[in-house]
């Protein structure tokens, strides 16, 4: 905060009293804006959650049932988003696709969290050579572009939905470990850790009962941004034909199918992509808002 108020002094000296007052006003607006960012993100994500849960109620048609009387129809009142090359209702496919994307992202993020967070917390706490070894390993993992590493993992697991889930979960581990480690390193020097140690707590108890709750903010932000990352990569893999396979309603695979009919039926490509975009945007807004809310030091930025 000291740094930030310094900035305002230099500003106000140029602008005078009014400048200061205007600064305060803008700041409270910005604070409200952060809540707005967070709420907007949560609202968008919430809509998708509703779509995933209530998919059978919301979707007017069976997403997998072809209708050869209605091939590649443009959006209309019956078919809100139009129909695809097999006459299937695109709106229904997008709604059901939410389920596929959420499932993949949930499991992948769970894998990355369950493996990455304990690793990061433990090596961060221990320091010394375990920290150095894992640190090097994380550095090395970061050299692999995510999609390429996922492709290499898919060579082991086999192409398909399960393979994509495992691949995305595994490639997320280094980032989760890195953030958890950083949070731990920042936390472990505090007096309450020393007190716990003096009180005779076991290291495991200190890490998971005392320190973990204080790093939860950072980890929650990470999970929310990790979700966005998982959705983007899952849809990319499915788009490349390496993830969800047709006829499963999947945003990425449906986009790949729509590309062949771009000239005649651009709506086949438009709507699944919009769904990905809005969900990822919502997750990013929620994650970013959460980060600013959780860390007051960042608020002035």
């Amino acid at each position: 905060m000291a740094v930030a108020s310094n900035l305002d002094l230099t500003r106000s000296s140029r602008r005078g009293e009014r400048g200061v007052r205007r600064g305060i006003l803008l700041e409270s607006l910005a604070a409200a804006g952060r809540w707005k960012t967070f709420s907007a993100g949560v609202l968008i994500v919430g809509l998708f959650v509703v779509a995933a849960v209530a998919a059978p109620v919301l979707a007017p048609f069976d997403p997998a049932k072809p209708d050869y009387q209605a091939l590649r129809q443009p959006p209309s009142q019956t078919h809100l988003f139009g129909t695809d090359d097999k006459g299937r209702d695109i709106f229904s496919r997008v709604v059901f696709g939410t389920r596929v994307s959420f499932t993949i992202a949930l499991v992948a993020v769970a894998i990355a969290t369950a493996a990455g967070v304990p690793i990061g917390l433990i090596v961060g706490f221990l320091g010394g050579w375990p920290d150095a070894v894992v640190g090097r390993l994380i550095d090395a993992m970061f050299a692999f572009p995510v999609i390429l590493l996922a492709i290499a993992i898919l060579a082991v697991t086999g192409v398909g939905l399960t393979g994509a889930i495992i691949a995305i979960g595994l490639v997320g581990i280094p980032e989760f470990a890195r953030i958890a480690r950083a949070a731990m390193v920042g936390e472990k020097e505090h007096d309450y850790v020393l007190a716990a140690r003096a009180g005779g707590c076991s290291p495991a108890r200190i890490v998971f009962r005392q320190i973990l709750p204080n790093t939860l903010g950072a980890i929650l932000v990470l999970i929310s941004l990790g979700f966005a990352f998982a959705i983007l990569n899952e849809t990319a893999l499915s788009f490349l034909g390496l993830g969800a396979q047709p006829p499963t309603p999947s945003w990425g695979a449906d986009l790949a199918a729509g590309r062949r009919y771009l000239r005649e039926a651009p709506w086949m490509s438009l709507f699944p992509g919009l769904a990905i975009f809005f969900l990822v945007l919502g997750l990013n807004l929620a994650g970013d808002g959460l980060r600013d809310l959780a860390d007051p030091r960042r608020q002035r930025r």
Partner: protein
Amino acid sequence: MTRYVLSRLLQGVPVLFLISAIVFGVVAMIPGDPAMVVLGQGATPENLAAVRERLGLDQPLPVRYATWLRQVLTGDLGTSILSRQPVAELIGRALPITLYLSGLALVLAVAISIPAGTIAALKRNTWADLLFTAWAFLGVSVPGFWLAIMLIYLFGVRLQWVPLEGYVAPTADLGASLRTMALPAFTLGVFLSGPLTRYLRSSVLETSVQEYVVVARAKGLAERQVIGRHVLRTSLLPFITMLGLQVGYLLGGAVVIENVFALPGIGDLAVSAIGNRDYPVIQGVVLVVAAGVVGANVLVDVLYAALDPRIRLDRGSG
């Protein structure tokens, strides 16, 4: 300075070893018998054993790793199962196309993010800031392959300004080449400009409260000079490191974008290799790209030291 460069180069070596071990380990875990792949279904047990011995598959894993590493260090990345061509040759043909695409995208991303990040920081909490922050958010949220398809529809199908897909080498026809690369480079550049803009914004904000900036203002320098010579120059240094960190991001994005625009780069090579279970090609591509990313990061650190005397004096002596 020489000492710093050497020590930085040496630091890259263990990382490269780890990378090679990871790539080797992943490929070694692939289920199925490579000897079977070579011989096909009707192989006799004797033939299988002979091929396994010839390929060194009867050796323990560490020995196989050492043998493989020795080959890799001499530039031998194995042979493609599908095309029977050396993997190094396939990569040698595909890599320049990926680098061409990534290079254009990087130039575009820098051209967008330097003015955008600077203005967003200087006009903090104004409409301009909001606009650029929104741009950065959209850039990281939009799926690249979808943006690419929408741009193809708009500029290729509707307006017919650019060809739909395909690749023209810049040496063959520079104008046509740039026209085919415009959309892929733009898509990839937008994707990258988001994080770069946000990073530069916070970097400029941090620099602009430093005391020497206050002094520069106090001694009556014009605002242009304060920003250009004092604030931006310092803020761009960490920005260069950030650029280095984006190389992996850029190459990963290129994999998908190449697929959309049918550009025969390394992404295209990797994706078709996995479809054909051509593992030596996947192994080679992943290894070369990861090594390239490490190399780029070392290069950026050296460049950083060359530009910032504080770094090379500090770390070079340590």
